[in-house]
């Protein structure tokens, strides 16, 4: 907003003011400029709330309509890492606020320290998020349609039938490594559906599939319904056939969160929706953390240049406000995704 470089090229600076260097020409006094800056920042934060508000609304609607999806899927999130991130962000808000106070008290050295600590907190947050995301991608929990592709070779959660204990083979309904019912490739989807859309956005058939969990066998698909049921989703996105895993295996150390969803017969339809909303919201939040880091770095640079003092620290104050809102949004996100 209003900063130090108020003398634009177009303005001939022929009248001699004795105003402080940070006061822009259209303001009467520094206090007026500061108040205006604050009002402007609060308005901007209101827009951020409205931006995320839309996503929170989407979350509420889907959670209300499909509670089973959220109840099941939230187990795939690592609560420890999430809690750690929450603490990190709260601490970084503390250091930021401390920094503002330091500026107010003209303790510029302390301000520098606090800004650096805040920056480190933000970086830690992003690093932890990086690990969370890559782990999920590793397990095949992608956003969008990629969710329904078989995860890579080194997925921890995937059970290869070949490596299943002896005795599993006689129960196996199929020896394929891809679960039947989940398409191996988008092209297969496309061909199977006879849809008009190109392969990158396949049109699906709707098939109702009944399975009996644990038997490894599926009843033949019912006659293709011509009605698109909203919640069921297409074949492969609905409850699908599962790889044959004997009962004993099913029970032993098989917390739902340790099973790749595509192999879990009890997974609810459309569970990809949870991950979509999760990635959209935490992704947008992550982008705002990055923006916050850029802002704090810029503040740090200006602090080192000696441009802040107890007389003028408006950008620090406003940057602090922004950081607090970023933190606040995470404080809402954490329980909504990780805890409930």
């Amino acid at each position, binding site marked *: *907003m*209003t*900063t130090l470089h108020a003398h*634009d*090229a*177009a*303005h001939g600076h022929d*009248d001699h003011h004795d105003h402080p260097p940070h006061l*822009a*020409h*259209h*303001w*009467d006094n520094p206090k*007026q400029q500061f*108040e*205006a800056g604050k*009002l*402007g920042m609060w*308005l*901007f934060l*209101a*827009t*951020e709330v*409205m*931006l*995320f*508000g*839309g*996503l929170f*609304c*989407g979350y509420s*609607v*889907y959670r209300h309509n*499909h509670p089973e999806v959220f109840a099941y899927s939230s187990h795939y999130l690592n609560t420890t890492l999430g809690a750690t991130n929450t603490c990190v962000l709260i601490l970084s808000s503390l250091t930021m606020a401390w920094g503002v106070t330091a500026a107010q008290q003209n303790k510029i050295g302390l301000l520098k320290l606090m800004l650096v600590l805040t920056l480190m907190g933000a970086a830690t947050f992003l690093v932890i998020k990086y690990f969370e995301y890559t782990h999920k991608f590793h397990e095949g929990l992608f*956003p*969008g*349609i*990629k969710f329904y592709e078989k995860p890579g070779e080194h997925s921890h959660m995937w059970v290869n039938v070949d490596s299943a204990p002896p005795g599993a083979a006689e129960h196996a309904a199929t020896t394929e490594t891809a679960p039947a019912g989940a398409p191996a490739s988008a092209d297969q989807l496309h061909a199977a559906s006879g*849809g*008009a*859309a*190109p392969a*990158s*956005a396949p*049109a*699906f058939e709707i098939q109702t599939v009944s399975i009996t969990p644990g038997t490894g066998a599926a009843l033949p698909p019912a006659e293709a319904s011509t009605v*698109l049921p*909203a*919640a069921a*989703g*297409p074949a492969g*996105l609905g409850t699908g056939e599962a790889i044959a895993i004997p009962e004993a295996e099913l029970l032993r150390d098989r917390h739902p969160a340790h099973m790749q969803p595509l192999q879990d017969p009890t997974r609810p*339809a*459309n569970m*990809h*929706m949870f991950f*979509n*909303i999760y990635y*959209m919201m935490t992704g*947008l939040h992550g982008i705002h953390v990055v923006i916050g880091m850029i802002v704090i770095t810029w503040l740090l640079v200006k602090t080192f240049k000696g441009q802040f003092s107890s007389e003028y620290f408006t950008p620090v104050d406003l940057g602090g406000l922004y950081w607090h809102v970023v933190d606040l949004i995470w404080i809402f996100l954490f329980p909504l995704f990780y805890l409930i």
Partner: protein
Amino acid sequence: MTTLDISKPLHPTIGEDNYLTHTRGILSWLFTLDHKRIGVNYLVCVLTSFFFGGMFALLVRTELLTPGKTIVEQDAYNQFFTLHGAIMVFLVIIPSIPAALGNFVLPIMLGAKDVAFPRLNLMSWWLWVTGAVFFVGSLFTGGLDTGWTFYTPYSIDKGSAMGGAVSALMGVFILGFSSIFTGLNFIVTIHRLRPPGMTWFRMPLFLWAIYSTAILQVLATPVIGITVALLMFERTFGIGIFDPKLGGDPVLYQHFFWFYSHPAVYIMILPGMGIISELIAVHSHKHIFGYRFIAFSSVAIAIFSFLVWGHHMFTSGQSPLMNAMFSAITFSVAIPSAVKVFNWVATMYKGSISLNTPMLYAMAFLFIFSIGGLTGLHLGTLAVDIHLHDTYFVVAHFHYVMMGSALIAMIGGLHHWWPKMTGKMYNENLGRLACALVFIGFNVTFFTQFFLGTKGGTRRSWDYLPEFQVYHIISTIGSYILAIGFFLTAGYLIHSLFRGKKAPANPWGGRSLEWQCASPPPHDNFATTPTVGDCYDFSTVEWDEKQGTFVVHGEGQPSPAHSHH
């Protein structure tokens, strides 16, 4: 505030330094921090976009002269109406009054040197330009045929809707931020840069209107931002939030979209209403009637506009309860608008009316906005809307309020402030002629469409039944008359830049602060501290033949607050 420099004369004549001549060169315009230059930049951009949007409109109307193909096939036609709508809504009407006229006038009306955040203002303009580039980009990345509303699942299905959608959606996203930052700037400016003596209830009504609009811009626009972002992700990654094939809900998209787009239409009309208040008061030389009501109604309309988005979705499958609630609240929004119209007409009572071009546009506004608002009653009524939804009745209604009202108000305001902005007077007779052409052309074009709609003529239809053809032909002829009116306007306005008479500081006899600085204003807006009184008290305004301008008597002393009759 302003620097006190009483050595400079009150009204410097043209030839002396003003904002147009203060610095030279294209870069001094592209990277200016002067709100006036930014306003002019916006004006050029908005009017250029209006030209292109209008061209698409003429193509649409020409195609509709006959059922089936007249000049183009369906795919081209579908792109024409989509681009016409998207360009007009996002690139023209939403920014036009606030960003083009508001940027210029608002600080001067406040006696200020600039807006609160000049750099942010410049960024807003560059965001507009970037957004426009992405928009145009959609033409080169596959075209755009989803309608300006981008309804799902059609807009998601890459097999059907054209590929330019993502580029256009990115454009909308960026344009949204342009709008947000402009609104933010204006709110802070009005809060913090009012001069001493200008309390809230001494502000010109144009500023109340801009303020209410700014609230809408700040709070509503982020929602369209997130909506188009979600839509872009839907299209590229298939996240499924709006796609029934992936477990999503297409009606949820409509809720998201209209939650912004309904307040958006009030972003379009509220500034127009603000302009009308100025035009009628000044050109009738009469205090505005019912100042407080008009001021409060602007804010009330802004607040209520957040509560009625569902009236675009009466047939979407929404529950009857929601439909009833939205319908009821919609009617409550109608009342403040209606009373404003009564107030404006009452302002003319016992006025001393000069039928200048701006006044003629204001009267045209009253005529057209009344029809537009009244037909809104039909559409807000549940039983009737079932028949009228998605027919030409809706098309006629929104053109009456968006084009015939908001845009006409903008053009009226442009004529009103043209002498101030350019220092030149345009040809008054041509102005009146063009106003008549625009008025007649507009009504012929769009009144016909009310009948077309009630008869069952669906919108966005390249082909139609032969019995509808006569309506389409009349409507198209009207659109050509309308176009001639606009071309004539452009002609004499551009001509006035080179050959127009020199404009005095106060050609119309206004009392708000912008008429107390030179035409065009100097770089810093005011040479001396302006007088702040009742901006609608014209009793102290008189034509000075010698100076060739209106002057405000008793300068230096604030006039008493508005007098009672």
